[in-house]
């Protein structure tokens, strides 16, 4: 087990390096002079200020030196300052993170509450009426654009029925009840979007397991169907399912851009779109790096968990 973890970590190192290079290139790939881009119209006719800024930001140094400076600062937790208002990037990100985490966790719980029973019923009794209902739900859920589903739900519950507020956010520590009211629509939308692939995966996982010889053996031993399903089929089918859950959670924690945008939910995803629109490239660089790292590490954790649960993986 330990050797597997070490191997995976070794594989990660070059990937981390490449990711940091990719993110670093963001500002430097943009056509035009980075200083002018960052400074904007304020620097139009002041070449001496441009030069001073360039020197101050270290942009007059060769690229690899700039990269090294940036990466060493980032490793120490100093992600620079936002071009817009000179606030430290770390502070801005920490402000946005709770909203994303809250949305991610609640959506995942809702999705699991639906996906696990649905997937099990569907997988254990394929081609039954319930299975067909689940399959329709899965197909629809996977084909719908998330933002459109969000708008539809908003139209129904906020505009027509006026049961819930359409957009907005209040931090949970300030007004918990209002926070939850704002949370319902985006969380439901997200839950539907991620529940669909999870249900389908659990279903196909169960169907595959059902064909295994050990299931036949279990039945031949005379075990009740319930025990066969729960103790043998489900336990094994849940392993790959857990990896899918982990991957979806990784995506959620990385900040679901579109849903946050539709509902005005100020999390990491919303932050990224906002910084792109405002051309706040230093903030963009750091937030993209953070998001990519979160995603990467979540994937790593999922892989390790899978290896832990399924010993066969460790020896590949």
């Amino acid at each position, binding site marked *: 087990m330990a050797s597997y973890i070490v191997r995976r970590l070794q594989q990660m190192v070059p990937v981390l390096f490449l990711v940091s290079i990719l993110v670093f290139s963001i500002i430097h790939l943009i056509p035009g002079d980075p200083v002018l881009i960052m400074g904007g119209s304020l620097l139009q006719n002041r070449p001496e200020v441009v030069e001073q800024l360039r020197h101050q930001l270290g942009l007059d140094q060769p690229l690899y030196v700039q990269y090294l400076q940036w990466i060493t600062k980032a490793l120490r937790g100093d992600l620079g300052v936002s071009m817009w208002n000179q606030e430290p990037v770390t502070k801005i990100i920490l402000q946005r993170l709770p909203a994303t985490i809250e949305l991610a966790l609640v959506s995942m719980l809702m999705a699991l509450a639906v996906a696990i029973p649905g997937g099990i019923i569907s997988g254990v009794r394929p081609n039954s009426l319930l299975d067909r209902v689940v399959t329709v739900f899965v197909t629809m859920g996977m084909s719908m654009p998330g933002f459109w589903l969000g708008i539809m739900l908003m139209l129904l519950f906020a505009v027509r029925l006026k049961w819930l507020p359409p957009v907005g956010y209040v931090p949970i520590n300030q007004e918990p009840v209002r926070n939850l009211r704002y949370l319902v629509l985006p969380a439901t939308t997200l839950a539907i979007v991620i529940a669909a692939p999870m249900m389908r995966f659990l279903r196909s996982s169960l169907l595959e397991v059902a064909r295994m010889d050990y299931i036949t053996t279990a039945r031949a031993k005379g075990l009740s169907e319930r025990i066969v399903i729960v103790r043998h089929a489900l336990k094994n089918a849940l392993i790959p399912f857990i990896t899918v859950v982990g991957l979806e959670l990784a995506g959620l924690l990385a900040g679901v851009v*579109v849903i946050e945008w539709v509902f005005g939910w100020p999390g990491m995803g919303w932050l990224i*779109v906002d910084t792109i629109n405002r051309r706040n490239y230093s903030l963009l660089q750091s937030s993209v790096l953070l998001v990519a790292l979160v995603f990467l590490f979540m994937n790593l954790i999922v892989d390790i968990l899978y290896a832990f649960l399924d010993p066969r993986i460790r020896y590949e």
Partner: protein
Amino acid sequence: MNADVNAESPFEGAQEGFKDRFWQSQSGELAKRIVANRVALGAFVVFFVIVPSAILAPWISPYDPYEMHHDAMLQPPSTRFPLGTDELGRDLLSRVLHGGRVSLTIGFAATIMAFVLGVPFGIISGYVGGVVDDVISRVSDALLAFPPLLLALVVVAVFGPKEHNVVIALGIMSAPHVARIARAAALVEKGKDYILAAMCIGASSWRILWRHVLLNSMAPLIVQVSLTVSLCILIEAALSFLGLGVQPPTPSWGNLVQLGYSFVNRAMWYAVTPGVAIFITVTCINLMGDALRDALDPRLRGSR
């Protein structure tokens, strides 16, 4: 099988036409399975209604999608404007049709790019192995470290929200998944005996790669096509919805939903309709992909 008992000579009536040979071939088996699956058939039919409508949009649209009718702004669906009008009096049916043209073109172009990039790298990575495999896999992992939409967002943010940049962004986003599938398939083929046999009779590596490995890896790749197209269409819609994809006034299904979103209180139909178009199209593609996957699954072959 097709012996004509009234034929003059014993050889005449026993000709097998192209049709007979087709239905007995591998593609014919595939076609038989698809036809038998009515849902897939329905999806196929609807898809082949949607795609030509999108392609022929300039000829079948009732109005010019940019023409503004100042007497009919934000009108609900009527006989004059079957899907209503937008805030500038433009006919929504025409805009949705043209938007389909844009969205589908981008989706397919991005898929082509993803495969042009992903398949060669994937197959070479899987077949050659060693350092080449390591390097290509690390680069692929680095790209996969970003959630899909984020990667496309960043590429578009850097290079500007033009249509060809969207295609490039989506292509880059999808290529690693394609490369992974191609690599896995190549690894499977590599272990098979016929490759060894080909090497023994002196076939060059290129020939082996092209003729044997690639051709026999097609099945999972074909299924991946449908997954990639649907993902690209959905992400293009998301990008355009965020204002970072196709820019107005050029219609795209995504930016039509965005514009409709700002009028969601007054003009429900505006936001709903392009979304329905996306939904139906992607559903059809997914259903066809499922049918293809079931049909191509070797484990089920011969069990019917």
